[in-house]
Structures are given as C-alpha cells and as structure tokens.
C-alpha cells in the first residue's frame, strides 16, 4: 500500500516566476523523507507539486516529471482529483471540517465520488483510522461531537486519520507540528514513525531536530537570494546529512552557521 516517487528535472513556476529550479529526487517507499531548508526556499511549494495541490493557486505550473511507481502524475489525461486521492496531505494548521462531527471528518474522503459505504464498514474504518492516528482512545466516546472542539494536537491527528482513511499510497505533511505544543508534537512524531510501516511519508519541517528524529532520508533546499529560485542542494541518509554532508551550504545550515 505504498509507492515510491521519482522526480525528474522538475521546475515550478508561478506565472513567469521560477520558484523551484531543476529538482531531481527519489523518494523511497515505506520510509520518511524530510525536506529542510530556510523559509522561502520552495520546499513547501515543491511538496505541493507531489500531489498537484499547487494548482489551487492561479498561475502555478510545473515542467518535468513526477513518477508514482513509474506513472507520471503530469501525464496527459491524468486527473488531479485521482492523484490527490492516492497522495494524501496534512497541512501546517490543523483543518478538520468545522461543520462535521469527528466521525464524519474521518469519513469525509471515503464518501467522495459518490462512494457508498455501509454503517458497519464505516464504523470499522473510523475505528481503524483513528487507532492508526493514535486518537481512538481520546475520542471514542464523542465521535458525534464536532472536530473543532478538540485540542490543536488532537485536531492534527484527526486530519491524519482523515488522510489515512482513504488508504493513500503516500502521505505528504507540510510542517504538521509548527502550530503545536511540544507534547502534541511528540505524539505526531511517534505517529509518523508508525506510519512509515505502511506508507511513504514526506514531511516538510523547519525544525532540524525533528527531521533528525523522524526521517530516514533528508533533502536540503536552499535559495541564493530573494527573487532567485529555490534549489535542492543535496539529499541523502539523514545521518549523513547531519553528520557529514557533502555540500558546504548543508553543513552551515544543519550546524546553525547559516547566513
């Protein structure tokens, strides 16, 4: 239930502005890959191109290939809706649907495209997804209550439950802990560790300790200056990137001597 992603020579544009230049990277299945780098270096932008979420912004487009187990996401006739149902996403700020109950939030993606699901199957799926997101014990007695009544960390785990309920191949996380307190962050990090047994996980983080804690491989993005495109500087095993990077810029960044 997980696939690898291979990106070849990807350029991302906003209108005429080249935001991310020439990224080639292989993301292994059933592993956690972290994207680190300074603000504005294009790592979130690049992450969004992996499930075509960048297309939500007017004028955003890409050149190059993103292969999901060999299938080009940008091939002719590929529907972004299908892409997104296979490559789930968790956002910076927890965003459960405020008008839905906890249960309906988990089922939101499953019920899309007019899919019908029996109540029994739904119950099983809700329990499995919430357990998969380490949230079941906290919410099992209030599944009909609104998701917006949970704490920030619980809401974020609810969003993860919602993402894994549709059984995606890949889960993208865009700074999933940046709005959370340290304890909630720890809960999410533990969860990421469990998720990689089943899913390919890609996480953008500002927190280098977090990248070091949760990821198997780390990619460092950097930007030469304002108005210049972001670039992938290097990618490798997390241990190597943090202890013995091959690029000077990477070493400066991970050791805090940046800029």
């Amino acid at each position, binding site marked *: 239930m997980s696939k690898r992603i291979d990106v070849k020579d990807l350029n991302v544009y906003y209108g005429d502005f080249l935001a991310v230049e020439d990224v080639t990277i292989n993301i292994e299945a059933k592993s956690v890959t972290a994207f680190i780098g300074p603000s504005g270096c294009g790592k979130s932008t690049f992450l969004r191109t992996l499930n075509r979420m960048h297309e939500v912004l007017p004028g955003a487009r890409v050149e190059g290939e993103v292969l999901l187990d060999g299938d080009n996401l940008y091939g002719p006739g590929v529907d972004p809706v299908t892409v997104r149902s296979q490559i789930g996403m968790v956002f910076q700020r927890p*965003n459960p*649907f405020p008008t839905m109950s906890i249960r309906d939030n988990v089922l939101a993606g499953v019920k899309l495209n007019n899919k019908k699901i029996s109540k029994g199957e739904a119950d099983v799926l809700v329990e499995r997804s919430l357990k998969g997101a380490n949230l079941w014990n906290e919410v099992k007695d209030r599944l009909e209550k609104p998701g917006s009544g949970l704490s920030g960390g619980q809401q974020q785990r609810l969003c993860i439950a919602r993402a894994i309920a549709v059984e995606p191949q890949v889960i993208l996380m865009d700074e999933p802990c940046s709005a959370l307190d340290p304890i909630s962050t720890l809960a999410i990090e533990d969860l990421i560790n469990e998720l990689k047994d089943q899913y390919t996980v890609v996480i953008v983080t500002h927190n280098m300790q977090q990248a070091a804690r949760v990821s198997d491989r780390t990619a460092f993005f950097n930007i030469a200056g304002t108005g210049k495109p972001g670039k992938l500087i290097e990618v490798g095993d997390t241990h190597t990137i943090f202890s013995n990077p091959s690029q000077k810029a990477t070493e400066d960044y991970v050791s805090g001597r940046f800029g």
Partner: protein
Amino acid sequence: MTATPLTSNQGAARAGDKIFSGAALAAGCLILAVLFGVALFLVVQAIPALTAPAAEIQGGEGFFAYIWPIVIGTLIAAAIALVIATPISIGVALFISHFAPRRLAAGLGYVVDLLAAIPSVIYGAWGAAFLAKEISPAYNWLAANMAWLPIFQGPASATGKTILTAGIVLSVMVLPIITSLSREIFLQTPKLHEEAALALGATRWEMIKMSVLPFARPGIISAVMLGLGRALGETMAVALVLSSGALTASLIQSGNQTIAAEIALNFPEASGLKVSTLIAAGLVLFVITLAVNMIARWIITRHKEFSGAN
C-alpha cells in the same frame, strides 16, 4: 527618568475612549428607541381598528377577516420570490466566487450589484408592461396542462397580472441582495478548509459541498432573510404588477393582494377608521417581518456548535 505613577490619570488619552464609548452607546440606544417608537406608533394608531365593531371595518366582518387574506397573499408572493431567487442567487454567487475566471467574475459581480440599484417602480413598470404580457401564454399552458394542481387552476388571467408574475418580479428584485451577500460569504471560506477537501481528492463541486456551503450556511440564511424582508415589504412593484382581488389558491388568475400594496393603494384616500385599519395592517406586516428575523436567528444559533466559529 521618573517612573509614571500608576494612579495618574492621563486625562487627554482617556477622553477619547470616553467619547467613543459614549457615542457607541448612544447609537445603540438610538436604534432601540427608533424601533420602539415605530412599534409604539403602530400599536397606538392601530387600536381603533382593532377595537372597532366588526361591521365598521372594511368588508364588514371585522379586522381579522380583512387582514388574513392579504397576509396569505403577502406570504405567497414572498415565497414565490424566494423559491425562484434563492437557488439562482446561490448558483450565480458560486459561479462568481469559485468558477468564473477572475476578470469575468469582477464584471458579473458588478452587473449583479447594478440590478440592486434599479428603483422598484421601474421593476413594477417592466413587470406590468412587459413581463405580464409575455408570460400569459405560459399561464394558458399551465391552465391547460397542470390544472390538477390547485395553484395552476384556470382560467388563466388574460393580462398576466397575477400573483405569480408579481412573485417573479419580486424574485428579480431580491436576487441581487442574496447574490452579493452569498458571494461575500463564499469568498471568505478559509483556504485551509477548501484545501482540506481538495487534498482528499474532492472535485471542485465536492469541495464546495464539503467546505464552502457548510461554512456559508448561516450567511446564506441571513441573505435569504434579508431578501425575504424586501419581498415582504415591497410595495411599488406589486402594486403595479398585480391585478388584486380576493384570496384565491390559483397563482395564475388575477386576485390576491399583499399588505404593502394594499396600504399603498388605499392610504391616499383613506380617512378615520380606514387609516387605522391600514396602520393595523402595517403592524401585522411589522410583526411578520420580526418573526421571520427571529426564526432566522434561531436557525443560525441552533447550529452554533458546528458553525466553525469555535
């Protein structure tokens, strides 16, 4: 440097606060006073009609017999207007906010706002002189084919000046209100929730169903209620379009009357008890509008827990 004592009252800085809070309080009280004044005026002026012997009221059967047909007529006209205008308005608003290319959306929004700027007497003239004539073949068809529904009972009015025509004209008049308010609400849907739906693999329509419409629901209700307020109170258009008469179930015969048009048409020549009767009718309209607004509030607050405000 000397420390500022905690007790010093910096008079100049505080004066602004005091003036502002005083002005805000006065404005708030003024609204209540105006509302209360209007209600008081209506009640005091209406008392003679409400207490007069039944035979002296127009129609000779008392105030209640006089008022209830035109209350029903008012509600029918407003209901027709909303049934037609609400889905169209929401559709147009969604098109402007989520489907149209940006440039087209701006132009379209402007045109819709322009509709709201047309005076109601012009809508009335258009309805009476053009729409009524053009639509009467359709009424004949309805009378011939749909007469099993009491609301389409024939014979259809030859002039087309029916309550249905009035309702259609009203729907055009409330359309811009509902559209522009709904559009504003749709545009305020948090990007976060739209992206949440899209990232799950929702199509654009599913995204709208999952995030935009639930978020906008209280706003849509308020917009519809504002439209209803206008439809209930609209006078000129109905007075010009509707060939009024006794209450009838059929929407395509002439007949029926609304409170506002009844007041407008009769007030200039009224005197004595007749004035009082019309003002009492106005009081009833006031109460209906108030009730509609309170019901709308109630609907909105009932779903507060799920509103997204918490």
